[in-house]
């Protein structure tokens, strides 16, 4: 099988994640609390560091707090263009779509448009307004799966969510992202549980498993070394006000487990 990773966007010294060839528009969807925002912000930063010109649109019109716009300064310091409603409107929970977002649908070469979409089908509904302007331009729509969220604990729940999101957005899910977590109480076992669930979803639907995500400072993360999946090691960017940023994974002494570098364009299990 042809390996689809000629465009290594996340290419930090430890990173193994790649976007599918030619991918310039990536939309991240999933249930509330699946970790869409944390993943979007981390991907944006890692890809920007790898040399892509990244623009991120916070399309969360559902959630009033803890949206990617709260990491705006951080992202801008990494050279990322952050598109959010202007001024005080950015604090509202109103369906405000700024005109620049239409322009982001057709990014140029070397650019990447990242859409951090609101939770559940309610949040994904906004994407349906892009169906016509998008035309037949290629896109990636990744569904983030957290097996520790009440309505996506099993395959049935995730598939229902997938169907609802596809119906609401009038787009097709093109990849699964495993991100099982319990915030600070996440264990490697929880991460593996999510990876297994997402693999089963990939098998059942034919939609590839794109990423397995975990925090770079996850305790006991060596136990993930055997995981046969493309890993996205993240730093916690979306911090609640009572916590402080932990040291980044890179600053740690212990190496991040290498695992097997699997290009993320490849369906899990494909040889």
């Amino acid at each position, binding site marked *: 099988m042809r390996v689809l990773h000629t465009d290594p966007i996340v290419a930090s010294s430890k990173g193994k994640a790649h976007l599918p060839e030619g991918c310039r528009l990536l939309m991240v969807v999933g249930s509330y609390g699946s970790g869409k925002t944390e993943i979007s912000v981390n991907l944006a930063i890692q890809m920007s560091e790898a040399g892509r010109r990244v623009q991120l649109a916070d399309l969360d019109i559902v959630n*009033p707090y803890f949206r990617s716009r709260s990491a705006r300064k951080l992202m801008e310091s990494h050279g990322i263009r952050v598109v959010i409603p202007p001024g005080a409107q950015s*604090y509202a929970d109103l369906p405000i779509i700024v005109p620049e977002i239409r322009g982001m649908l057709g990014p140029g070469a070397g650019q990447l448009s990242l859409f951090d979409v609101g939770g559940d089908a309610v949040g994904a509904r906004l994407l349906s307004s892009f169906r016509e302007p998008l035309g037949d331009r290629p896109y990636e729509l990744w569904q983030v799966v957290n097996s*520790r969220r*009440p309505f996506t604990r099993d395959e049935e729940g995730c598939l229902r969510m997938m169907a609802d999101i596809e119906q609401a957005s009038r787009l097709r899910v093109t990849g699964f992202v495993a991100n099982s977590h319990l*915030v600070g109480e996440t264990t490697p076992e929880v991460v593996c549980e999510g990876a297994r669930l997402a693999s089963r979803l990939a098998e059942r639907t034919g939609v590839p498993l794109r990423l397995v995500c975990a925090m770079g400072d996850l305790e006991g993360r060596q136990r993930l070394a055997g995981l046969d999946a493309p890993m996205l090691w993240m730093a916690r960017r979306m911090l609640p006000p*009572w*916590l402080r940023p932990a040291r980044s994974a890179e600053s740690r002494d212990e190496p991040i487990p290498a695992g097997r570098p699997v290009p993320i364009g490849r369906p899990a299990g494909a040889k």
Partner: protein
Amino acid sequence: MAKVLMKGNEAIGEAAIRAGCIHFFGYPITPQSEVPEYLARRLPEVGGQYVQAESEVAASNMIYGAAGVGMRVLTTSSSPGISLMAEGISYIAASELPVVLVNIMRAGPGLGGILPAQGDYFQATRGTGHGDFQLLVLAPASVQEAVNLVILAFELAEKYLNPVMVIGDGMIGQMMEPVEFPVEGVGPPLDPGDWALTGCEGRERRIVNSLFLDPEACNRHNLKLKAKYERMAENEQRWELYNCDEPYDLLVTAFGMMSRICKTAIDDLKAEGTNVGLFRPISLNPFPYEPCRRVIDRAQRILDVEMSMGQMIYDIQLAAQGRLEIDFHGTAGGVVPSPDEVADKIRESLARIGRSPARKPGKRSAKAAAAQKSKSKRSKKTATAQKPGKRGGKKPQNAGKRSAARQSSARRHGRRSGR
């Protein structure tokens, strides 16, 4: 049962179901809308009813009716919505019915904003509605505690036949934390006791009423309610002490999420060698005055921190009885103080009693970072939620020992004790 990751609002909804509440009447308002959203999805699964009322005024009267016929019932809202419910809540309290209310507070006054605030402390503890009545008010500081307190709220509402309010700022409703539910399935239905309207065939009729035209009868009714509030004050005080085992010069007071930010600041200062205590009321009404006074007595100054312009501070004043100066730091509008900001205020307060190394917050030391890392473990150890009659771990400190500790602390700072 495996832990699940839930948004505070969802967890509050699920906790109600576990407590046996399968009837909800309410109206969406940010930042609490996920409670009705979650229950609209879940209640039909457990044979319950979800009704979206036409307004909060209607919702409060619907829970009045449902409770009157012996249903365990919940409504939730956010600040302006609670104001609209005020009339109904007063009627419910007057009619002595058990309901649970949740207020996920947002910025005010007026429409304010949708970000977190704690400006409804007065409303919850002093004047939710008209007339002489009191709510029992519980304030969680985590999603897990919100779950536990919602379940407790139903117990207490039924024990006292009184409305109980669980109050949290918007963050409690919006943040995601891992939770465990102490009970599986749906709790048993409410025992209609000798008060609910269940059809009077074969027994004497009951009346649910808040109208007393005869002044003597209305006075008697108020005296009866007063006696109940006194029982609540005696039995239902809950609070948490943090870092109060070692001697401290400054006591920080905060409730709800603000207390968690204060704990981070206190941990940072501890890593620098400065010990600061924290008092957090869990029951805002009845306020734990006596437990608060006991920790105040061991301090030389108080710093009250709130996401309001200063409301709980009046209860702290009542507890302090003028014995100590109280500094205040507050924000509104959805501005959440950072741990560094609180640490600065603590240093300022310490400086006023000549205790502060008044260090400028620089880059955090490796020690402070390590303290942060092990914080979750330590907080479990040092934090002790308490109830009257369950003071096992807490012994009054030996006076001699204390003064010795003070002297040594004074020596460390090269100053005489200010007492």
